[in-house]
């Protein structure tokens, strides 16, 4: 048994050591100017602090181990006062420098201009609503839990907390910012490389705070234009019988009361917009990859999968479940 424990420990340690700095939700895997500048600041400060710590430890070890005869309590020598004063001055200089470089880094974090792509971010228990805002009302569209952005352009996020405080955090692109009910905060992000970047709510927001993830997908401008045009379209009409039956079920059951599918009679606003749910990589705010099967599992019993979330279990017959999940999966 000891050997088993030992093996587990070794495996864990190895995994720990090999857990590289990359990861698709890591501040150390920076892919945007904000995150890059923050990472540089982090590295500088961590390195300097590590050196300070080592200096203090060395001093302490020498202090403890140096040989001397037992001395009666004598007044402190002048030299010691000079040494301590020197240490104090060095501390002042170091933290002064840190304060200045922090201020400069903050200053440099760009603020988006008016022309940049603007997305209204709504934080709700426990999912993300996104509304793309353009100059024309017809350019607007809504989606949920996944946004696409063009590489190399600033994106301005207007953060609105609708129920409790949430926090928008995609560490590979930028630091976090809270969504506070009653206040409007803003965050600018920009991706310099195409890729999929994961984010997660970073302010405790209740039961399923652990499962409130989002994806930011950075694409070339062309790909992005293609994607946003597709998103602007209403949901495609169901081509096959199975899909049509799914839509009917969706409209007949409580689903339409909470969810919107543009182009149908479903106009509910309580839950995520499902017009193009099939095109999203994950469902339930990052819980599962979007497949027909995972959609069916989710619809069948959301409360067991994500206990406490606001989607009730809607009893469906197996046929209804099959057709609804097929229909939703087809909404690309």
């Amino acid at each position, binding site marked *: 048994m000891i050997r088993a424990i030992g093996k587990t420990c070794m495996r*864990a340690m190895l995994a720990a050591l090999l857990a590289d700095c990359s990861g698709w939700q890591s501040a150390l895997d920076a892919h945007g100017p904000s995150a890059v500048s923050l990472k540089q600041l*982090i590295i500088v400060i961590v390195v300097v602090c590590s050196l300070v710590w080592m200096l203090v430890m060395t001093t302490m070890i020498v202090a403890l181990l140096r040989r001397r005869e037992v001395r009666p309590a004598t007044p402190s020598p002048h030299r010691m006062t000079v040494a301590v004063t020197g240490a104090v001055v060095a501390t002042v200089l170091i933290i002064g420098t840190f*304060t200045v470089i922090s201020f400069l880094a903050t200053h440099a974090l760009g603020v988006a201009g008016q022309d940049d792509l603007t997305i209204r971010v709504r934080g709700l228990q426990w999912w993300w609503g996104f509304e793309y805002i353009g100059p024309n009302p017809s350019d607007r569209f809504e989606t949920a839990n996944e946004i696409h952005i063009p590489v190399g352009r600033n994106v301005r996020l207007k953060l609105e907390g609708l129920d409790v405080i949430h*926090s928008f955090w995609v560490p590979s692109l930028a630091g976090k910012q809270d969504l506070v009910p009653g206040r409007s905060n803003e965050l600018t992000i920009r991706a310099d490389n195409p890729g999929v970047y994961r984010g997660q709510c970073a302010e405790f927001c209740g039961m399923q705070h652990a499962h409130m993830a989002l994806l930011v997908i950075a694409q070339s401008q062309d790909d992005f234009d293609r994607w946003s045009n597709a998103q602007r379209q209403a949901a495609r009409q169901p081509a096959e019988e199975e899909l049509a039956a799914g839509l009917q079920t969706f409209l007949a059951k409580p689903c339409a009361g909470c969810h919107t599918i543009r182009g149908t009679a479903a106009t509910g606003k309580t839950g995520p917009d499902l017009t193009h749910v099939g095109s999203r990589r994950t469902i339930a705010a990052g819980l599962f990859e979007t497949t027909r099967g995972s959609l069916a599992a989710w619809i069948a019993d959301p409360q067991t999968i994500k206990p406490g979330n606001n989607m009730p279990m809607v009893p469906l017959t197996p046929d209804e479940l099959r057709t609804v999940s097929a229909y939703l999966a087809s909404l690309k």
Partner: protein
Amino acid sequence: MSRPATTPGTRDIELQRTGLTSALAETWKTPSGLWGALATVDHKIIGRRYILTAFVFLALGGVLAALMRIQLALPEARLIGPDRYNQIFTMHGANMMFLFAVPVMEAVAVYFVPLMVGTRNIAFPRLNAFSYWIYLAGGAMLWIAFALDMGPDVGWFAYVPLSGPQYGAGKRADIWAQMITFTEISALAVAVELVVTIFKQRAPGMTLNRIPVFVWAILVTSFLVIMAMPAIVVASTSLILDRLVGTHFYNPAEGGDVLLWQHLFWFFGHPEVYIIFLPAAGMVSTLIEPFARRPAFGYLALVMALIATGILAFGLWVHHMFVAGLPRLGDSFFTASSMAIAMPAGIQVFCWLATLWDGTPDFKTPLLFIIGFIVTFVIGGLTGVMVASVPFDTQVHDTYFVVAHFHYVLIGGAVFPLLGAIHYWFPKLTGRMMSERLGQWSFWLIFAGFNATFFPMHILGLQGMPRRIYTYQPDLPWHGLNLFVSLSAIVLAAGFLLFFINAIRSARSGEVATDNPWNAPTLEWATTSPPPSYNFAMIPVVGGLQPLWENRDALSVADGLRTDRRELLVTTLAEAEPQAREASPQHSIWPLWAAIATTIMLIWSIFSPWAVVWGAIPVAITLIGWFWPKGTPEDES
């Protein structure tokens, strides 16, 4: 020396030594049995009780931590569901901060400050008894609620709107808010007693610059309590009002503000961590003298650093709100102030290093904990400088990096000195020594276990792991480190277990201790281990910072106090010149009655606002009973 004809009562000079001690014992004793236990006003009995209770809460909080670590060891583990987990982490934080960390520091002060300043009892002894009962009641209420699935689940700082009337269902958040009321009443009461004891009851000759550093630390801490706790009184009261009677302090739709909560909470919350840390810093300055075998270097610097920390502590609170959307320029001011507080902390570290440099280390368990403290607290302080930077914080706020930071400063910065202090003061508290062998073992297990558990959390935070999540998904690269952390926590737990075993066994059968087994310099070592009920047969007279080192053959004392009533000495604030022989109250059951009445009123008010009106009547009655003079000799003037 003849006694003046006008002074009534028997004075100590009229008795021989044995007669003196037995007369004092008779006057100052706590009656035996249950009645005595409930009615005692002896600061040592109450202090010991307080320390024990706080350590029980530490153990309970540790169990909660173990549960969390088991749940987080593997991704998407199904051991603990989200509702229970959210209660567990809230309870862990609230329990550790309000029921362990602050009370244990106050408890140690309650026991040792009167001894260190050379007086016979703490000021306002009945209030001291009351404050313990209130603390116990608040802690019991919280844990009983948790056992009944009514434990708060909104995080130890209970942000609105999550804890507000709309999203905080049931009474969970009210339980939290009222627990705050219990513990803050208790803490405020003790703070007042300590300030008055330190200001007015010091031994003759203990001028301001001869007050031990630990006592200075407690003085500054007590002022922090007095000035900071009202903020959380206001916060928790207004939260209860929002939830119970429909006020709108935190409702933005009706002119309230969500961030108001954060401002009020953190205005208290930041000084709160210094309320925990400053006594520990005082303990380090105390322990370092006997174990470096020389006076601490830089008395003035150490004291000034404590005061500076206390003042600066009020200017940092916004650093908890760096990502809430406040104006950037304001945030930057708080970066500067948060970094600045590293200065007095650094000064203290340099003074302690200087003391070790010129001293002759005695590598007993207390010194090991001091060394462990320096290693871990410096890390915690440095990560504090990191999170003080606004841009740095935007990446690590609300992640496991912060969890690592505050555990480094709280465990490294406060618990390590506390454990060292317990080993040091154990003989004075119980009359027996703790086992040195078990002490060394427990230190190394705790030190290694602590670092292995919490250091990786810095990395996890930078790798994107947020706080307060009951689980995480397998596609994130966190499971390796999480498993490592959970396994390391076993080592940490083993270390604490060994400490508890050591304490319990040594209390029963440890080596019997002399008055001053460590050859330490401060006044608590001038009396027996444990001290008699009256602390000192004659009040010591002090001429320097290390009284027992300066007078190795005989202690200077003052006589003239009565032995047939409880008397102690009141002295002037700055120069500690004798002013009056003040009476100290006898044991009384009224503090317990008052605590019971207050408890009923506070718990009732969770459910109905009228409790404040009707419940106040029994409270008033018990307070009148408390203060109504009883014609004892102590009432004479």
